[in-house]
């Protein structure tokens, strides 16, 4: 079993934690044709990380996390296409601020509830955001998507190129920053308090913890991270479609996280990688049936490997240790 992080846990980086970064840099040099997919995967990893923080650690159930991802994406897109703001850093900050407000506002409502009610509320909020994006055609482009997004060079130096080299490294840099922050958060007393809330909310109240205050902070921060991920996808694609907002991407990101492993940071890395690579491969091989492959993959994980792909890795490690 994946041991919970507690007050005694050692937060020092382990060797295996360098692996994703080494791998990501390798991809950049070895697989230059896949940088577009790569940038997308990095963005979804960031999105999944934010979901892991709120669901895997704090225990908030949500089927509407893409509300933030989508609003982040649209904020970035609209500011660029309609108002001519093109600086990628400024755009990220704007998306972050908008999503912080949205996360705080919806958090006030969502976090008062629990379980199924909470799930339904988050779903409703995501559906609302979707409908707004769908109907406000003059601003969002509606079903046709938002075109005319122009992104300037990063820090005025690195132009977004059609091979997506800049986009890939830009996404990687932002992911790295947020990974570091989230990792610190999870090993901090605040993070362990969130775990406590997930484990036993009632007892947390009885030991003097103002549970909703803590959850609201975490929820707002997760919204910011999801919003930044959304802004990154807009910057990479220079286009915003309805597929970034609403129920579908909310469900998708949850599937990715479950696939990788919930409540362990690196599940959020493995899940999107496996899911999006499989999707890419299956869509090329079986353009009409790729969903079937994803579905079967999830079925296998849920039935036989509750901890996701990383859960399987844990079991293999135990098995090897037992052999020695």
């Amino acid at each position: 079993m994946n041991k919970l992080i507690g007050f005694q846990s050692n937060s020092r980086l382990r060797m295996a934690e360098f692996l994703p970064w080494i791998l990501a840099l390798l991809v950049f040099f070895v697989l230059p044709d896949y940088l577009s997919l790569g940038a997308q995967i990095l963005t979804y990893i960031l999105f999944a990380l934010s979901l892991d923080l709120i669901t895997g650690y704090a225990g908030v159930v949500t089927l509407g996390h893409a509300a933030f991802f989508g609003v982040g994406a649209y904020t970035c897109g609209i500011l660029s296409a309609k108002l001519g703001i093109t600086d990628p850093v400024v755009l990220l900050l704007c998306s972050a601020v908008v999503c912080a407000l949205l996360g705080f506002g919806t958090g006030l409502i969502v976090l008062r509830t629990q379980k199924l009610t909470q799930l339904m509320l988050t779903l409703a909020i995501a559906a609302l955001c979707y409908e707004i994006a769908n109907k406000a055609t003059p601003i969002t482009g509606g079903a046709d998507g938002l075109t005319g997004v122009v992104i300037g060079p990063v820090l005025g130096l690195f132009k977004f190129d059609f091979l997506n080299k800049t986009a890939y490294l830009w996404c990687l840099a932002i992911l790295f920053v947020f990974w570091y922050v989230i990792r610190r958060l999870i090993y901090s007393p605040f993070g362990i308090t969130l775990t406590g809330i997930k484990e036993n909310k009632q007892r947390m109240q009885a030991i003097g913890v103002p549970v909703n205050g803590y959850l609201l902070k975490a929820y707002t921060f997760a919204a910011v991270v999801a919003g930044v991920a959304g802004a990154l996808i807009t910057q990479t694609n220079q286009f915003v479609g309805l597929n970034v907002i609403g129920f579908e991407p909310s469900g998708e990101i949850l599937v990715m996280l479950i696939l990788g492993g919930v409540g362990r940071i690196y599940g959020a890395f493995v899940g999107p990688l496996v899911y999006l690579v499989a999707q890419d491969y299956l869509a090329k091989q079986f353009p009409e049936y790729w969903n079937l492959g994803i579905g079967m993959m999830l079925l296998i994980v849920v039935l036989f490997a509750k901890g996701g792909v990383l859960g399987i890795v844990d079991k293999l490690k135990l098995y090897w240790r037992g052999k020695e």
Partner: protein
Amino acid sequence: MTPVLQTFGLSKQFGALTVADQIDFQLEPGARHALIGPNGAGKTTFVNLLTGRLTPSSGQVKIIGQDATQLSESERVKLGLGRTFQINSLFNKMTVMDNVSLGISERLGISKKMWRTANAFKNLQEETLEILDLLGIADDANEIVSQLPYGKQRLVEIAISLGLKPKVLLLDEPAAGVPSMESGRILKALDALPQDIAILMIEHDMDLVFQFASRITVLVQGAVLCEGTPDEIAKDKRVHQVYLGDPDE
């Protein structure tokens, strides 16, 4: 001395059902007080009214002389009111150490810290170990709680609430579900509790009540039937009636 816990006319109705009926109660500093009563007398309801889990239909709760009727559960904890649960309410997947540290961390204001690593707070660890030591479970500090025997889990339950440095501690049937061979451990732990904490114990086990308490309140059908020293209660005819039935019938 002002009582550390007081209620005035505390009542709770669920529809037509009255589960707490005009309860006037007070707890002196450092008291060892027991609340007894037959099943369904409303003991746990009374505890939930005190802690803020339930809001009263009418009446007032004062903690350390301060009106707490409108305060939330966590705010009352900060005034100095701790409790344990009749049925264990622990953090089952966490270690004994972490179970106890969570509350201490909140009290010391450490829980809000988002950047520093949790294991850097040595004072937190020391305080946690002190409490585990006091209750005799320091050897199990690094065990996962769900893997401990039930008797020890009951001690963790008490340890968590001690971590809050309560001035008033409500023990809701501390020995409930503990096999009789282990109940001695619980009593030993209760004896070790700091004298300056006022304790209100709700308990069915009369042996435990009479060994532990210096004052007893009897609750029947949501109302206080009588209050007194263990001797007075043992002799009280009404109490006998409630527990053993009317001898004339």
